[in-house]
């Protein structure tokens, strides 16, 4: 770790220079991020970069309104000036609505990196070797692979958080990710496939991994899609793989659980506490405490100790994801979901590791249940409008389900639906829980590492947007 002196002491001196009313609140968050990204594309380096970001985010809740400012220096005078700016802005925007944070939730702790091998200590050449191995094996699957690419990235972040209530937290996290992709082409048909592995562990993540096998698999999947059927369109029964379940539960449901959207009346899950939102076999969890997963962390960006959040219990909606402010407004304890991408952003309620818990059916049984429909696999991202509850996401590939069996391969296709209609329309939950939608989630221009997953799930009445 960098020796930055007594950050707690400096920040406390700054906070103590301001006289606050009982309901006012100040916090200072130091941020240090160090990382490298290496992308090999078609056997050449596409990107080899290092990033070193240092800065401070300062919040002031004064007269019931929030002011936020940033500075890049860590000295007492720079912090004082920035906090004064935040207070000035808070006073200027103060209006009818009064925001507040809860009293009595004061956290003190230090969470150093819990990794075996620090990626900052790995030579660049070694990182390049992993990416080259992955890319080479994607490319060698055939001349139809027009672009083969592999990206290996690591980021170590440290946040030191001090607030006027007494919270003092120093937390470090490490995120590593290896992803490979292929763009394949036959005549005018172009298809994309990709896979990734991302964790909050250290370099040891890649010591357990075989990049050659991963590359071969990606290349073969891409080439197979060139002879796949064009996708059908219509209202269908669908079996989603764990990756699609992950993107569904994250995009369609999870974002609507974030309490800021509920409080601003922009969530379809407003007013749904203790109401039935799915069939009894559905349990939804957001859990940042699972060691090593991509969305794991010990303290959030407000310094709140985080915990496991049960969102849906046997089909009944149980709770939202909270920052300090949203918890105070809803009168519940904060649950450590206030995350910020870096010092340039304010913490807001976010997901971590979000999944539907496993059920009791095999994939074969799910397909038998569906009889005729479509099996969608390998997410390629998506988005949702949480206020209306309309979602959209893309599968890299799929299969027709005919006579209750997985049939012919189909090209990439997207699906859409209405959030509140999907979980009640689940007709089967698989028993093969897997976390398979690892990535970086964007909200309000902030990107944070997350993962989603679940078992295979069968649902009726999903709109599939093909053209056959």
């Amino acid at each position, binding site marked *: 770790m960098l020796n930055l002196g007594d950050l707690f002491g400096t920040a406390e001196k700054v906070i103590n220079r301001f006289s606050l009313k009982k309901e006012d609140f100040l916090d200072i968050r130091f941020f240090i991020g160090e990382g490298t*990204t290496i992308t090999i594309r*078609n056997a*050449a*380096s596409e*990107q*080899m*970069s*290092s*990033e*070193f970001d*240092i*800065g401070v985010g300062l919040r002031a809740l004064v007269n019931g*309104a*929030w*002011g*936020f*400012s*940033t500075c*890049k220096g860590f000295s007492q005078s720079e912090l004082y000036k920035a906090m004064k*700016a*935040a207070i000035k*802005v*808070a006073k*200027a*925007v103060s209006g009818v609505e009064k*925001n507040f944070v809860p009293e009595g939730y004061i956290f003190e702790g230090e969470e150093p990196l819990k990794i075996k091998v620090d990626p900052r200590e790995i*030579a*660049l*050449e070694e990182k*390049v070797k992993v990416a080259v191995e992955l890319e080479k094996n994607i490319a060698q699957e055939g001349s139809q692979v*027009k*672009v083969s690419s592999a990206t290996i990235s690591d980021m170590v972040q440290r946040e030191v958080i001090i607030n006027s209530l007494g919270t003092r937290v120093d937390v470090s996290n490490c995120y590593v990710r290896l992803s490979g992709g292929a*763009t394949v*082409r036959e005549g005018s048909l*172009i298809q*994309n496939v990709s896979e990734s592995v991302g964790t909050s562990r250290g370099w040891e993540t890649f010591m357990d991994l075989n990049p050659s096998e991963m590359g071969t698999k990606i290349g073969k999947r891409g080439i197979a899609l060139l002879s796949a059927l*064009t*996708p059908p*369109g*219509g*209202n269908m029964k669908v079996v989603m793989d764990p990756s699609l379940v992950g993107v569904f539960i994250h995009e369609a449901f999870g974002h609507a659980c974030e309490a800021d959207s509920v409080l601003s009346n*922009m969530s379809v899950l407003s007013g749904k506490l203790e109401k039935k939102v799915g069939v009894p076999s559905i349990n939804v969890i957001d859990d940042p405490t699972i060691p090593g997963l991509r969305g794991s962390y010990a303290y959030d960006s407000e310094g709140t100790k985080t915990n496991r959040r049960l969102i849906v219990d046997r089909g009944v909606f149980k709770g939202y994801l909270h920052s300090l402010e949203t918890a105070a407004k809803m009168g519940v304890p904060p649950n450590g979901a206030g995350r910020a991408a870096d010092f340039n952003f*304010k913490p807001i309620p976010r997901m971590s590791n979000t999944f539907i818990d496993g059920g009791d059916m095999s994939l074969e049984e799910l397909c038998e249940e569906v009889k005729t429909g479509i099996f969608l696999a390998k997410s390629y991202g998506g988005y949702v*409008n949480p*206020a*209306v509850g*309309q979602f*959209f996401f*893309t599968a890299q590939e799929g299969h027709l389900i005919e006579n209750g069996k997985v049939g012919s391969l189909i*090209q*990439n*296709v*997207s*699906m859409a*639906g*209405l959030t509140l209609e999907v979980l009640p329309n689940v007709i089967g939950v698989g028993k093969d829980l897997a976390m398979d939608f690892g990535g970086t989630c964007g909200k309000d221009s902030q990107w944070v590492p997350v993962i989603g997953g679940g078992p295979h799930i069968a649902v009726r009445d999903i*709109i599939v*947007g*093909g*053209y056959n």
Partner: protein
Amino acid sequence: MSSLIDYAKKGIAVGLSAGSSQVEVVIINERKTRLEVQNSELRSGDILEAGGAGVRVYIGQRVGLASSTQLHELERIVLNAYHIAKAAPGDPYFKSLPMADKYPKVQGLYEKELAETPFENLVQVLMDGVEAAKLDSQYTVEGSLDRTINEMAIVNSLGIEVEARESSIDGVIGTKYEVGSDTSMGHEPIMGRSLKEIDSKAIGSRAAEKAKARIGAKKVKSGEMDVILDHMSTLGSISALLGSGANGLGAALGTAFLGGKIGEKVASENLNVTDNPLVPSGISSRTFDDEGFPSKKIKLLEKGVLKSYITDSYSAGRLGVKNTGHASRGSLTSKPRPSPSNIIVASGDRKDLVSETKKGILIEDSGLHLQGSSTNISNMVDFGFYIEKGEIKYPIKNTMVGLTVFDALMNIDAITKDVVNYWGSSIPSVRIMNTKVSSGQ
């Protein structure tokens, strides 16, 4: 301003002394003021200090990039990039960073009044819009407003030494409209280079009108029908289709669906498209691109025939064509890639597309987007209406369109005479024939 160039030149000297063959330094100083409205009330204000330095170093054909928010560490950033380049595999297709050329003049990229307007004035602009959008208690309004003042310098070891100062304002007013358990949304962007361009009351009113018109959405019967893209959706669709299909990097790699088709008819002959980064006060306007190379206007489609790719120095060098000056950098650590700027689609001859459509849907405020470089388009209709016998019947929900990128360009059979100017882009509304529409019925 010139101190930024002088400072960047110090970084160039460090890189060359270390043994680099070519060096590029980008310095950005950005000041941002942000306002946020939730639940129809002003919630927070931010004063942000962003930017930093980004360095690209070549040792022969090996590249290294490094960045930091800490400008005073420029020497360390340059040496970091140099060490990364030493470890990188070479790119046999890299030829050179760009060289200096003659630069155009573009008016209206910086407005002193916007840059210096007090915080309270920005609050007033946003809240005027919010008030206009909240017509009654059935509306909930959210919104944001960013004022950005940006100073940038790009210097490279081949003689490029350019700097720019820009101001802009951007944000959105979003309204949720509720009738019982039914909800709908309307959004309107706030965007411009100067305060006088912003009529926030009109923006707020339009957002409210849109939300109200979209209440009571229904699913439609799946089938083949015409798809009308409103002006905003046409802008999104044409930018996405040509930004990907005519992308110089994609063409060089073999993944752009229009690669190798210069001079060929790739779209309806009704379609004439140019990309013009020199439009005065355009939000994507500039005198030079993100490599410091002069920006220029290019013709992309003429009567449906592909006339040019969108290129930067790398893709132009690899394709053996002229650099069109369209390099765009996602962040200080990223290598630039070609990207479109202000898109101009020529007007057509139709007065009104809805009245001429027997059966179809109208897509508003979204448009077609691509999934990677796949040639399949499979999109949800975020906001749309069902059309029958030349009339809008009702708003739609849970509806998707499926087609290929080739159909999207070739099947445009009608273009409106009227165009709407969107902050530098100029766009009509278009109709795509015979498209598969899937929905809940």
